[in-house]
């Protein structure tokens, strides 16, 4: 069993009781709520005549079903079922006294973008949400876990979940990341190495030189995809990068309180001599930009590396059926594989740094003919910041559609979907068959810079071969000033 890790310490601080089923009752410090997985839980609560026990520890936003077309956000929404879901969330949060960032709030956006950027998520917290990508929040040194709707009911009713501790695997990512290679490439590479089910029974503690060098937005992208490797949670010990990110955030502590809180944040870091259940090393030196060739997130290859033949993979049968679907050719690289759609956004890569990175590639270039390119900021806050910096103009000039915040084409619960057998260069996290709204559609996962390069070339391209702009826009521009102007 692990000892002295952040996971152990945070778990101990939040344990409420031993339950008769042998599990622990674990207190939840932050419950993020959205419209898709919560209405049934509110319904169950109502049937049991129970109230939300800790509304102050609960924050809601709307993300999965919201239209991202600026013209399509008038209420009532054109999609009656989406309107019904949104109305339920408005009603439920109002009744329970839960803070809600709705369509009329310019901070609305994806739960896993809004929670961090507004300072709700802090080190040493337990965070849950009815969404598997809650693992995102581990970037702060929090324990973030996705839960189902019955567990959402539990959190509403008791501020707790019934859970058992997982084994802790240290994932030590060594090496230095080259130009054009970033967090998304690291996590795709880790999943490729350890497998989509490699993390079952585990949480991942990411560490090592390559992880330490990432900024918070990169760390969020890494932890976000922990679940794609089968790990229930993934986290990174908090450090100065974490604290600097939190400083000045709207709902983060201020002044002396911030310094006091920092003592707690420091205290929950894994000890130098912490014991892990498992320790693996993944080398990221000389890592190439990664691209998925198949239909699950371990079917990944470096952009300059040949796609493996099915019998060279862990699961030849799955690889064969995946290659049948994606029509990639074993032995050839992904470079040159044509795309119809470029999609930037999501809880993995819908943050300011992701768009800046893509904009550096797009500056002075145009999206290829026949490529449909969508830029969907992860939140209204992200969008306003990018607009203040002038980055929206780079996207617009290149021929990208500039959208409103939402989950969009990641899972296509709104109007943004692949059509027919379109091929998509996507900054999202899942390449499952049908994931982006068409059962014939094909998704290739890659970094924001690689999506931008694919948009320009109309095909998967090694972004390292592009001359990219040093910087784009004015990173010091104040989003709020822009809004007031």
């Amino acid at each position: 069993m692990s000892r002295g890790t952040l996971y152990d310490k945070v778990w101990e601080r939040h344990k409420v009781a031993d339950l008769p089923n042998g599990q622990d009752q674990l207190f939840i410090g932050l419950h993020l709520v959205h419209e898709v997985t919560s209405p049934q839980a509110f319904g169950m609560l109502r049937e049991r005549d129970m109230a939300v026990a800790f509304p102050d520890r609960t924050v809601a936003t709307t993300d999965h079903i919201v239209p991202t077309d600026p013209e399509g956000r008038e209420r009532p929404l054109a999609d009656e079922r989406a309107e019904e879901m949104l109305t339920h969330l408005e009603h439920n949060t109002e009744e329970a006294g839960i803070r809600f960032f709705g369509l009329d709030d310019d901070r609305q956006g994806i739960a896993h973008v809004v929670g961090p950027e507004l300072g709700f998520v802090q080190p040493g917290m337990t965070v849950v949400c009815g969404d598997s990508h809650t693992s995102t929040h581990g970037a702060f040194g929090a324990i973030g876990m996705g839960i189902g709707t019955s567990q959402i009911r539990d959190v509403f009713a008791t501020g707790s979940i019934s859970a058992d501790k997982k084994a802790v695997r240290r994932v030590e990512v060594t090496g230095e990341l080259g130009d054009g290679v970033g967090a998304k490439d690291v996590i795709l590479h880790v999943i490729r190495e350890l497998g989509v089910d490699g993390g079952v029974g585990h949480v991942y503690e990411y560490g090592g030189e390559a992880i330490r060098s990432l900024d918070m937005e990169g760390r969020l992208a890494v932890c976000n995809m922990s679940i794609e490797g089968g790990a229930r949670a993934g986290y990174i010990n908090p450090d100065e990068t974490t604290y600097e990110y939190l400083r000045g955030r709207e709902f983060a502590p201020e002044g002396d309180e911030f310094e006091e809180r920092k003592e707690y944040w420091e205290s929950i870091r894994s000890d130098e001599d912490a014991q892990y259940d498992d320790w693996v090393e993944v080398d990221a030196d000389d890592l190439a930009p990664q691209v998925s060739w198949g239909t699950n997130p371990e079917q990944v290859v470096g952009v300059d590396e040949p796609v493996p033949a099915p019998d060279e993979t862990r699961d030849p049968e799955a690889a064969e059926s995946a290659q049948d679907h994606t029509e990639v050719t074993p032995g050839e690289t992904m470079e040159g594989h044509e795309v119809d759609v470029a999609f930037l956004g999501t809880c993995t890569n819908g943050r300011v740094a992701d768009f800046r990175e893509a904009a550096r590639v797009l500056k002075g270039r145009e999206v290829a003919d026949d490529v449909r390119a969508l830029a969907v900021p992860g939140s209204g806050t992200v969008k306003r910041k990018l607009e203040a910096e002038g980055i929206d103009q780079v996207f617009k000039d290149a021929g990208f559609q500039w959208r409103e915040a939402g989950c969009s084409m990641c899972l296509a619960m709104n109007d943004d979907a692949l059509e027919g057998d379109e091929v998509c260069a996507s900054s999202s996290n899942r390449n499952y068959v049908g994931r982006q709204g068409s059962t014939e559609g094909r998704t290739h996962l890659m970094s924001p810079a690689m999506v931008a390069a694919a948009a320009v070339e109309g095909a998967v391209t090694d972004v390292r071969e592009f001359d990219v702009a040093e910087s784009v826009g004015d990173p010091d521009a104040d989003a709020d000033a822009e809004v007031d102007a």
Partner: protein
Amino acid sequence: MSDDGDGAAVPAIRRVAGTGVPLRGDDIDTDQILPARFLKAVTFDDMGEYAFYDQRRDADGELNDHPFNEYQGANVLAVNDNFGCGSSREHAPQGLMRWGVEAIVGESFAEIFQDNCKSLGIATLAVDHEDAVDLQDFIEANPDAGIEVDVRAETVRYDGKTVDGDVPDAMREALLEGIWDTTAVMRTNLDRAKEVNDSLPYTDD
């Protein structure tokens, strides 16, 4: 089945007996089990008809020979490795349950999916690769044969033989004791939860 109305009378689940439905393949994700477009509903009521919706239809929308079309009435689902990976949507096990699944035998399960099964009183039994494939083969050859998942003994019995497996301890206890709906038991610790809340450095924001 579950009484999720008022939390009362949660029945113990010691065994699930019936016929099987084989579903082959590793890493079958919840997007396949319940496609995202059917999540646009504020209740789980209709999820049974959406289970494997896309896989069950051919290009013209006609029902094909997918096991969920062929093995109607079965209640023991036989799967392979990492079943239920991906999205946390409880709609997926809800869909399986409402289609008729009461127990799932497979090589391994994604954790959020397994937790969701526990919340719904669906037993999951992990068995070796060969045992999972043998069970699938058997069901295909004998679609009407009886299969019994014994939660207490952590076995699956069919064709006169008994195969050992693993039901997670918490799920086993929960099903056997009728405490798989944990809201009520956790609610009795609400004062203690409030104490933990008050003890945390970050809860006074």
